[in-house]
């Protein structure tokens, strides 16, 4: 039965239907910022808001710290949607390893140029075209400041973020305008109880946002698609002080090796 409301009846506000604690946000608040490239790593996105375009970023760490793991994690997110240009002058990129962490290889354009002159020209072309929102340059050593100074206007004029991947931790990085990510190994991830296997790696990332002048350190965990058996057995023992006097571990695949050596 339809009931007509009289003029003296109090009308409920449409908003009253919502619980009072519900936060109503604009749709634009939910959409990612156009000038940011989401990294897919929630703590990093919460701190930086994504990787800012038109800036030079730095990813650095000592050998084994987790720089490549972090890079693959980043590429896994970006390559799902966008093409990424990877300058790999030392041919160190290992595609099956990247694919194992979810990098979408059809969206990864790998440039294996060794000649620095050609690399710089190719980089200038890439920045001019803005075809790839993320350009990664696995430089090995941090490029000299004057080169970064020359790159900066091109990067500012482009629609791309330039990420420099560096081995070792540079003392200073004057040309970096976006974010600096310093990776450190934190721990190998253990499997479920009773299954001593390595299921991933946690990397501690020290992030510096050069635009807002603030820093933070956050742990990021990357899971392997297939666990490594018994890798952690001795590593954990060392952490818990259970290692032997020399700090050396036992042989994981000892039987096979022993028989081979004996033979």
């Amino acid at each position, binding site marked *: 039965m339809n009931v007509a409301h009289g003029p003296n009846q109090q009308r409920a506000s449409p908003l009253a239907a919502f619980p009072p604690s519900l936060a109503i946000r604009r749709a634009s608040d939910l959409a990612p910022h156009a000038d940011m490239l989401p990294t897919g790593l929630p703590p990093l996105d919460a701190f930086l808001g994504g990787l800012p375009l038109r800036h030079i970023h730095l990813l650095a*760490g000592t*050998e*084994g*710290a*987790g720089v*490549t*793991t972090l890079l*693959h994690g980043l590429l896994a997110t970006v390559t*799902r949607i966008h*093409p990424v*240009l990877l300058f790999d002058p*030392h*041919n*160190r*990129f*290992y*595609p*099956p*390893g*990247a*694919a*194992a962490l*979810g990098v*979408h*290889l*059809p*969206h990864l*354009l*790998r*440039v*294996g*140029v060794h000649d620095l002159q050609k690399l710089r020209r190719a980089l200038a*072309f*890439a920045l001019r*075209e*803005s075809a790839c929102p993320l350009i990664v340059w696995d430089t090995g050593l941090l490029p000299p400041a004057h080169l970064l100074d020359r790159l900066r206007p091109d990067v500012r004029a482009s629609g791309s973020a330039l990420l420099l991947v560096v081995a070792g931790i540079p003392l200073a990085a004057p040309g970096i305008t976006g974010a600096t990510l310093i990776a450190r190994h934190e721990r*190998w991830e253990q499997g479920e109880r009773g299954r001593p296997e390595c299921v991933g*790696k946690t990397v501690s990332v020290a992030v510096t946002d050069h635009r807002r002048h603030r820093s933070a350190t956050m742990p990021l965990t*990357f899971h392997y*698609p297939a666990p*490594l*058996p*018994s*890798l*952690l057995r*001795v*590593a954990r023992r*060392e952490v818990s002080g259970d290692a032997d006097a*020399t700090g*050396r*571990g*036992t*042989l*994981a*695949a000892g039987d*096979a*090796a*022993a028989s081979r*050596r*004996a033979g």
Partner: protein
Amino acid sequence: MRQRPVAITNGTLVLARNRRAVEAGIAVGMKVAEAATHAPDLLLVPDDPRRTQALWDVVLDQLDGLGPVVEDAGLGLALVDLTGAGRSERVLVRRTLHALTTLLGLTARAAVADGPFVASIAAQKTAQELILIPRDHGATFLAPLPVAVLPLPRYAVADLALLGIRTVAGFAGLRLSHVQERYGGIGMAAFSLAIGTDTRPLVPRVRERQETLSYPFEPPVDDLTPVLFVIKALLDNHAAILRREGLVAAGLRLTLGIEAREPVVIEQRWSSACVPGPAELDALRLTLGDQFSGEERDGALPPRVTEIGVTLLDCAPDGGAQLPLFGAGIVRQREAVGHLLTRLHALLGPMGVVEDVPVESHLIEERWQSRPYTPERIGTPPASLPIVDAPSLPSLPGMILCRPPEPAIVGWVGEQLTALACGGVHRDVLTALGPYHIEGRWWEERRFDRAYWFLLTTDQTLHLIVEDRLSGQWTRVGVVD
């Protein structure tokens, strides 16, 4: 030649034959020796696809004068849009057929109909030089023909024969809902043709556009700058024409007339068909710069350019790629990547930008193949299932390769692998995972017999080292970073 049996052969088999040869019992696919026994005066003509295509291109050029759109439906069959010709269709077509006979010595049959399907069937079936199917009589013409002329799969034709439906008329008499239910979209398309609805627009043929401008370099120039200015003007001219006609080009050929020398010809294929712009000009500039600076290095006088010609290759309709429809984001992304690749290919060569494709292999250095990157890869959906890894040795995320592999020394205490020295750095080993024994290709010179180990050192770095059991050498090939 028309009075004699003629067969086109590839040396062993008959590829095509004329009517006289058919009458003599010669079939396509028959061996030449067998064909010769059927007709002693058989004339054998070697197959020459390039010459045939060249002749066919001339025929298509002649047909260009007949209508605005000419579709190349394969060697020997062309479709021309005669919209607007009115009652003069017969005269126009007869004149063209006469021209083909007079100029090229070819005989042709033509049919005029409402749509391309009926016209092509009529031209192939008729024995007359020209047949006109009156307006709205396409279905009547098709009615007595066997149902196999319709674009139906073979099983459907056999199925219809079992139902007693052997002609197009019988197929057209079926209920539309029944056809849809039984044969789906293909059946619906064939049904439309059977009832005379043939509205497929013609696809303009792919052809080369040649736009050569002779610039009077007087005196000839030995500087690249004015040459590049003229090239840019020519390219802009081409781009305007392509935009006006809705075409894209796949590449260009630049011809530079050089004083007292052979002309220089540079042909470039772009990574994707497009309207030439700054990226294509850049690519040309890079190639020209390399070529001319190379000549100067040789100590010779710089070449003096007298004339420039730019030819666009394989101009084709752009297929609406530039319209802002659904999916245009990917199209634009592909276009941008295509422009970038054009530049990078000119700078770095075709293998300068590669895509890596994982393949299954036991050796870690053979677990992927690199191929030149093409813009068509943009928009590929991510794989829903993980890539199958080789069972012999896992591919760890975050691994980088050591290039070249670094010689390593391992230390043993008893049966335990306890130390790793590599690159002048000594590390104690916490744990070792291995050996992953891999052996293969023992029948080749490239045989391998290796044992891989993952070594976790005290600095928490995971190294992949390998012992070559043939030479006894240890090397570090990767690091999980």
